[in-house]
């Protein structure tokens, strides 16, 4: 399934809680159903993104890790 990402956020090198704050800001700019891609290096972001999505109702559609970079794809509710 190919997914069209509306916006990519580079959060590499940022530590908690900055990745969540920047994501919360960025997703405001998107329309409902659009996808946001976030790239982070903070290991704590894995749990934080999961919890943030379930709390806000946005959908975490993909989560991968490669060479210490975590990639999250979030669909705006």
């Amino acid at each position, binding site marked *: 399934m190919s997914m069209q990402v509306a916006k990519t956020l580079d959060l590499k*090198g*940022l*530590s*908690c*809680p*900055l990745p*969540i*704050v920047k994501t*919360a*800001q960025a*997703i*405001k700019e998107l329309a409902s159903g659009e996808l946001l891609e976030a790239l982070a290096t*903070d*290991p*704590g*972001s894995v749990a*934080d993104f999961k*919890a*943030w999505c379930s*709390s*806000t109702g946005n959908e975490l559609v993909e989560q991968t890790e490669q060479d210490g970079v975590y990639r999250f794809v979030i669909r705006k509710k």
Partner: protein
Amino acid sequence: MPAKVVVLGGGVGGTLVANLLAKELGRDGKVSVVDPTGMHHYQPGYLYVALGQANGRWLVRDERTLLRREVDLVIEQATKVDPEKGLVHLERGGTLEYDYLVFATGARLVPDQVPGLRQGSYEFYSLEGAQRLREALRRFRGGRLLVGIAGVPYKCPPAPVEFVFMVEEYLRRRGIRDRSEVTLLSPLNRAFTIESASKVIQPIMEQRGIKLVTFFNVEEVDPSAGTVSSLEGEKLEYDLLVLVPPHRGQQVVIDSGLGDASGWLPTDRFTLQVEGQDRIFAIGDATNLPISKSGSTAHFEAPVVASRIASLVRGTAPNENYGGRVMCFLETGNRKATVLRFDYEHPPAPPQPNLIWHSAKWLFNRLYWETVPQGRLPEKLPMPVPTGRSES
């Protein structure tokens, strides 16, 4: 010719680095501190001012009295640094030459980044703000008191948590606790960014009846409606709102073309050299390092920068590195406090709050003026290696 060292900023980091270098270099160096006000603030004290436990005079001293005699103090705003020429431009048109430069310029508050913040909320991150908040608290007769942060990064990460604990105690002493609701707004799903600290803090909040609203990233304040709303789409009503304003790096950093988009200096996490600049260092709140913006950070960084500059002046290889060490007290009210000690490798393992750490913070507050700026506090404080996995 003595080496010329210019330090921008006369806060804890700038004062300490200047004093250490002047002592170390002796006649081999000429150290100058440039500060726009010439007054040194002990910023951790703002919290006590807001709660009516201290007056402002205790928190401010003339920077001249804290510097070694041989250090020059230039009371002026630095407007721009020219790294090519090794020059600092000053507001009144003068310039200062440097061989080595230290940015210890700190952070500034930018409340206008959040609509309604300036009109609708109080803060304790400036002396004037803390004094205004003290008056607002005196007028407070009970109601909904909301405390949160309106942007990251911000200085002294434990301060909002300390404030909710201390204000809860304050309301009890005033006899209006039963008529008040105290709430902490957190940008995350826990009370504090560091998970091990949250585990200590949250049960105490529960015991004390302090509410926690999670994933609340402040978007705007509506002063006329008395509401604050979050990026997550929540809107809360308040009677008294206390929000830490967003922070940015100083204008001189931006105007010198050395900072990132928010004005923080890209800094090497070990050498504290500004990236791409052999003769420029940065400490304290001014850096972009992903560690606490606090006086404690600057305090531990200053000896590293002083040692590295002294080595460079003498033509030897610098060998001191900063290991990310930070130590913060966290007051939980009722004469108890815990402590967060950590570095790049070790997350903190805070003890249960007790009277000992509360007394230690009290002692530190009193000893500050005579010890920290002069480098008299033993650098190698006891620091048991904390255990636990690395946490964000």
